């Protein structure tokens, strides 16, 4: 029962992590899409396109977590991570072209792919900075914890009483 619970919790954590990623990257795609619409002189967005973007972000989220080793949370930007970033960015670009988010303009789809690549790299570095800060904090807490065991003069007297 415990093993089942642990696996279920692990599964839930992964799903929540995918949901977070989907939200973050969907926001990036939607932002790009809105910028494009505004640049075309339109303040209207196609609802169907927004649904497609959500589905695209979900698919890429699953791809990223289950197949590509969660590259935006990796410790270093190696070959596998670079491949993951390129593949997911290309996927977004291809989806935008096939589904006609930018009226079939391939240049804009390529630009979206490049934009998404920069988003992935930014998130990777943000995660890295966050972990570095956490590492510093952990080691500071560890040092304080160890220091806490160094008895002062009063405690020494207490021990000898």
């Amino acid at each position, binding site marked *: 029962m415990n093993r089942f619970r642990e696996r279920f919790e692990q599964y839930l954590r992964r799903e929540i992590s995918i949901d977070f990623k989907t939200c973050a990257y969907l926001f990036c795609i939607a932002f790009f899409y809105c910028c494009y619409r505004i640049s075309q002189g339109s303040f209207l967005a196609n609802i169907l396109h927004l649904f497609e973007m959500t589905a695209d972000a979900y698919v890429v989220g699953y791809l990223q977590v289950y197949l590509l080793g969660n590259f935006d949370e990796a410790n270093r930007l190696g070959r596998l991570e670079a491949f993951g970033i390129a593949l997911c960015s290309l996927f977004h670009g291809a989806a935008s072209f096939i589904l006609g988010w930018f009226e079939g303009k391939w240049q804009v789809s390529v630009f979206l792919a490049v934009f998404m690549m920069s988003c992935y790299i930014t998130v990777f570095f943000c995660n890295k900075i966050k*972990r*570095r800060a956490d590492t510093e904090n952990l080691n500071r*807490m560890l040092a304080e914890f160890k220091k*806490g*065991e160094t008895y002062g003069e009063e405690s020494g007297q207490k021990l000898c009483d």
Partner: protein
Amino acid sequence: MKLTLNKISEGEEEIIIRYREMTGRIETVIGILQGTGQRISAEFEGGRAFLAPEEILYLESVDGAVFAYLKDRVCKVAQSLERLSGVYADRGFFRCSKSMVINIYKISYLKSESGNRIRATMENQEEVMISRRYAKRLRQILKGGESREPV
């Protein structure tokens, strides 16, 4: 450390410890003198010995047997991980996975990993990965917000 022994013919026997800073070694000596020094019975290749908890870097369960890793040697311990992490929780023993107990005082470096995990580098440079579940408890212990007693 300088050791001075004076033989006396009369009067009460006395032991005075002069220290600049209380270290684990001195603490062990005090524990022995007060009769409270807890020792862990362990088997070496050459025989049997009693280990001070402060000497142990980490304990690992392998195929049902528990091994204690010291700075320069490994020995077999008869007690279970659950018992050891419970009895010596106040001496820094922390259950970091199902099969491992580490001595927090013997961690030389902690590194935050993805997924809220923590990589602990022990004094013998051995690296131990602490999963998110146990990492959360370690953070609480380090913050001093949780009792060191096991859950």
